[in-house]
């Protein structure tokens, strides 16, 4: 158990999540990718706390912030999805390209 191993785990989770966020069409699936990336942050924060700076609570606070972020992210994401679906009957990001320049 070393910091590198934890960080490697975090990097792997982050990359998998990034792949999902990039490749998926469905909003819900994209959010899964985002959640995975946030999960990587949790792992990384906890690892940094444990290995690098256990005397200060900052690492734990980062984990808490990340957990809250996940909850907020999901709530807002589903609310937006619901609003879009209600208005347009779509659930994939390819169809919601209003911001095209």
């Amino acid at each position, binding site marked *: *158990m070393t910091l*590198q*191993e*934890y*960080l490697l*785990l975090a*990097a*792997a*989770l*982050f*990359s*998998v*999540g*990034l*792949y*999902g966020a*990039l*490749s*998926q*069409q*469905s*909003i*819900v*699936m994209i*959010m*899964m990718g985002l959640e*995975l990336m946030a*999960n990587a942050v*949790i*792992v990384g924060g*906890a690892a940094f*706390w*444990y*290995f*690098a*700076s*256990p*005397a200060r*609570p*900052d690492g*734990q*606070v980062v*984990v*808490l*912030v990340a*957990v*809250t972020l*996940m*909850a*907020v992210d*999901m*709530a*807002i994401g*589903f*609310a937006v999805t*619901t*609003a879009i679906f209600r208005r347009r009957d779509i*659930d*994939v990001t*390819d169809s919601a390209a209003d911001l095209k320049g």
Partner: protein
Amino acid sequence: MWTQIVFGVCAAGSVATGVAVFRVDSMARATFALLASFLFAAGTILLLNLAYLGVLVVLMMIMEMVVMVVFMLMYMMNPAGLTPMTMVHNQKGSLAIAGGVFAALAACIFLVPWPTSGQPRPADPTRALGEALMGSKMLVMMVLGLCLFATMVATVVLATHRGRYDRYGDALRAKRPDDPVRGGLDR
């Protein structure tokens, strides 16, 4: 030794189930694969002596994923994956970017001389966290609280399709709200 094995299992399980999220056809399975990934990750956190945060992640992720699965089934055309279909775009590019990011991160991880701490670890990390949140990190706590409150309001506003004018009439004069489901505490 045992912790090393447990960590290895948890880490491998976490990444494997994380990959599975985007490989399985059934949305329910994808969601619960994600949940499994979280739980494995929580296991690694528990190994770090962070009992509270680990259990908290377990608790929250279960609730989150259960809510998520509801929306998954609601918005996906093929929730059970009985007739497999692809819902991806730019797969190669995504793979390249994700792979590149992983490579870069891994390189950094092994190249950067990470600091190590000889400081003693607190006997009760949960207490340390609580005191930090109620003390020096009070601002974080307040911001989180505000964010959650704003999220609740925004979520309701975004998701609901019925406002008070629908319930109590244009002049808000109706005695009884016009709800699709009758009954309740005040009516």
